[in-house]
């Protein structure tokens, strides 16, 4: 404590309904929330890991030599070292199933739960940041961070791959190639689709985040349910039921990397993902706006 408490405290103004300068729409702006999240260690670690993964793969290919066609037919791995675009596609291929799920679940699952865990949530709510605005801003920032994470990996891979293997056509494992000029938009389509297909994970994590004070619970729950979805999708006996599993469509982005761009799988996957995401987000808002915040 200071030895000199405030000497002259001005008397309170006449009583308006809110403090001077307070407007609900200006509370917790996106920039402020982004600054709150940006310097967190988990953000740094995720960014570092995603940026490092392409280099790890380059080293692996340097040690192991140029990949040969696997026994289970050609995959993107086989053409990894053909060009920078191929390498970026390969990085997406190896990471889309799990590596890219984790950052999304982390950013969206941890955003509310960690505030609850730090007890800072109640001070934000009493500031007061309206609850729907708090959720909206947090979701937007978490999705923004997720999008950056999803773009970071292929972008670093593209640059690093181009340096390592040169700039050239995107050779397709089934034969044929995409001209280097076409390959970039196609890769962009793939990345956008991966983001859309992760919306369901994001919304699930976000919903869990509003339900628990344990950030790891929300992240783990979302990743766990994603794994359950993958397991269910492996049960071919489910037949057409699998069409409504988000995991069923998680590799549809590969449809963008073939001679003629094929939209139908991505559209169906996007439909499933967005639909689940809408409902889960609605659940998050519904639960949180009347929740008793006791953390």
């Amino acid at each position, binding site marked *: 404590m200071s030895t000199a408490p405030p000497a002259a405290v001005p008397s309170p103004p006449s009583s308006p309904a809110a403090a001077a300068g307070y*407007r609900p729409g200006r509370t917790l702006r996106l920039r402020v929330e982004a600054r709150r999240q940006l310097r967190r260690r988990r953000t740094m670690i995720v960014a570092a890991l995603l940026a490092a993964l392409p280099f790890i793969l380059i080293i692996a290919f340097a040690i192991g030599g140029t990949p040969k066609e696997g026994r289970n037919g050609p995959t993107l791995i086989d053409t990894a070292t053909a060009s920078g675009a191929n390498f970026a596609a390969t990085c997406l291929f190896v990471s889309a199933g799990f590596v890219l799920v984790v950052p999304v679940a982390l950013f969206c699952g941890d955003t509310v739960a960690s505030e609850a865990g730090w007890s800072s949530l109640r001070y934000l709510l009493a500031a007061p940041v309206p609850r729907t605005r708090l959720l909206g801003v947090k979701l937007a920032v978490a999705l923004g961070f997720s999008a950056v994470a999803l773009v970071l990996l292929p972008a670093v891979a593209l640059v690093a791959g181009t340096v390592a293997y040169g700039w050239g056509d995107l050779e397709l494992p089934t034969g044929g190639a995409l001209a280097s000029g076409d390959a970039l938009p196609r890769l962009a389509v793939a990345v956008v689709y991966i983001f859309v297909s992760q919306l369901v994970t994001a919304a699930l994590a976000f919903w869990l985040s509003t339900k628990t004070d344990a950030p790891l619970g929300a992240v783990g729950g979302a990743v766990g349910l994603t794994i359950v979805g993958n397991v269910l999708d492996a049960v071919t006996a489910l037949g057409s039921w699998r069409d409504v599993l988000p995991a069923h469509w998680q590799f*549809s982005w590969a449809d963008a990397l073939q001679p003629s761009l094929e939209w139908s799988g991505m559209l169906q996957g996007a439909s499933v993902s967005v639909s689940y995401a809408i409902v889960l987000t609605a659940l998050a808002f519904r639960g949180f706006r009347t929740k008793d915040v006791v953390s």
Partner: protein
Amino acid sequence: MDLRWPRRRRWLAGAGALALLAAGGAAAGTAAAGGGGTAVHRTDAMLSGAGGVRLDTSYFTAGGTGRRPAVLLGHGFGGSKADVRGQAESLARHGYAVLTWSARGFGASTGTIGLNAPDGEVADVSRLVDWLAARPEVRLDAPGDPRVGVSGVSYGGAISLLAAGYDHRVDAIAPRETYWNLADALFPNDVYKKLWSGIFFSSGSAALPGAAAGTSPGTSPRAASGAAPDPLCGRFAPTICALYQRVATSGSPDAAAREQLEALSPSAVASRIKVPALIVQGQTDSLFTLAQSDAMAKAIRANGAPVAVDWIAGGHDGGDTEDGRIDRRVTAWFDHYLKGATGTGTGPAFRVTRTGGLNSTDGSVVLRGAEGDSYPGLEGTTARRITLTGREQRITNPAGGAPPAISALPGAGSLSALSSLGASLSLDVPGQYAQFDSAPLTAGTHLTGAPTVTLRVATDAPDAVLFGKLYDVSPGGKSTLPAALAAPVRVQGSPSGTAVTLQLPAVDHDFAAGHRMRLVLATTDLGYASPAAPSAMTVSLLSPELTVPLDSALGDDAAALPWWAWALPPLALLAAAALLLTGRRRVRPRPADPALAAVPLQITGLSKRYAKSADRYAVRDLSFRVEPGQVLGLLGPNGAGKTTTLRMLMGLIRPDDGEIRVFGEAVRPGAPVLSRLGAFVEGAGFLPHLTGRANLELYWQATGRPPQDARMAEALEIAGLGEALERAVRTYSQGMRQRLAIAQAMLGLPDLLILDEPTNGLDPPQIREMREVLIRYAAAGRTVIVSSHLLAEVEQSCTHLVVMDRGRLVTAGPVADIVGSADTVLVGVDGEVPQSVVDKVGELPGVSTAVREEDGLLAVLDGLTSAQFVAELVRLGVPVARVGPHRRLEDAFLTLIGGSA
């Protein structure tokens, strides 16, 4: 306050919304397969065919007894009536009388295979039409003339054409994947199609399980019934068998064979087929090529009958034959031309299935249709001339025709469908082929039809066979053969050279810009018989131009998405709207109370039960009021409900009942009036990775209020953290966090400051400073609420007190009134006072309570004076040592709450 939904109901609402979504998808999954509905009635019977042959038939009807059109469904070669049962049932449900039969020589039918002979299989169909005409539920055009359509795949497709040619009573047909001229199909350009012919023949000559009944595998075929006399011919008619054996042995067709097959073909009655025909042909079909359907379509159209042509993806070689779509189209065709439902569209005059790409999810090829208003034939609506280059090339025909080049293979059609993706099985043997390449295409070229090229072939041999193929060569050099098709041609030998106009296979293929076209002329092919004698030949282009037909009128339609893909997001939006609307609690916005605008806090009838304890109140019926300038102490033991009250005051939790007004405004979550309130409740809440200063700055930014209103310097001075401000909060001690949190609460100098246990973790000098800060803060007319259980602490800084216990208000008022009450007397006693004595004291008239204290007892007087009280104590034998007015809040507090705390 209103009633809450029980927690379980809320979960149910969420689960319900997800279930709705999942059910939407599931319905999508089953709708395609679901055909159910009306029961189909089936009658199996052996009916008489022509010449005493017995035909195994099934007759399908559904629904009422009204007259309806009939449909005859034929089956493919080597099959039986059972193959078309599904389509028959579906058509029956759709309002047709459907008759299926096993053709003679197949299934349980007797007779021999005559390859749709006019006096055999075709006459059989006329008998079946006779039978249909006698059925009471079959609609008649005239007595003995039923309204009847015929459809079938392959062998059954040909019978539909022939029935229409030989029997005028047939009203509409839908031949699928079949031949127009069997001689052209099996001996294209005089080259024997040995692989397919062999498969064709063996599937009819092999002993069928039904036919061989009674014949054990070991016994001689001669021992079996007379219907299968020859182990080599099986159930084939002897003339057919002889033809096959002759051609297959020589490897080249003779004129007699051609003549015989042509007589059996629909082309023989071309001028008599005058009924609406839906012609479906496969693109990956090296047996019955698109050229067959082309001839069919042109002939029937020339007769004036409506014709639609549908090129499906698959075919005899394999691949997706799109049965579901085609079955629906056939039904619509019959609806239009048999039922007279002119409102039913018959689909486009020309439709081509194109392969979009691979669906990576299930590995299937995505199909989409391209449609045109007219069928242009294999020559296209326009043609593009592509210049090929390549000098004269000398190639050889190996002795025995081995090793052969590979193009289409029966069963490999599913792979040829992938040719657009770059997969190809095609193989050419070096030295056995000539190639002529185009320059890289400057623009994409979508070939639809059969390209043509003129060649010069010179050889010393009496004749030569060439196989023409048009490859798509990517810039990377990878070549693919569209639909894996090759066009054979037999050339008369001439050392000086023979001019040949070669029509290449009809395909639908998009040559992308930058790709080359490569014409390959090979001397061998696995699927065909080429001359066994070795020979050499020179091949050159007579004209460098390759004529590539295009159909510019074809419009691609988008790949069909299942309906749920469109329905799901709106459904989800509906579910979300329902969730958000029903979850809303109907809270009437309480208007501000102007009379209370100057009152920092008024609590009225406040109650709160937590969800998990239905009967235990955290706060019950609490009411008190705080005036400006007060430093109010909120006192109570742990669990008294102090923190719950403060949480409700901050809008963090909702009261079950009662209301809180801050400066006249009702408090609810996020109420703007909360911005006039600074709070420190239940410990600090900081982002551990940020510094103390960054935490305060970001907190203030989060409020959205102007930076200059923060009074940051004053707040930081109160925190007194010095250099530590620049360290991450995670390195702070408990006391440092506490001070930073109090500074945060004071940011912006709120009109109402709420501090919950503010002195926890502070050392005594800091506690004293804290006390001064609070007094000074309130002196300016602001209001401070301090909750504590450290009673002595509150006594010194507060002007007023609210005492709570077990959720209820015990007392409220100025500190002096409560603490300094002369009615409270502390009696010092020598030694122990037994509890029984304390109880007796408590029961004295004029004493409201008495509590045993550490070294005496504490009593609240209610009528007695101190002197009278002492006299009573002495009378009770209490060893009174000293008596004084009670000055300690703790004692007062304990007294007030009845000593049970």
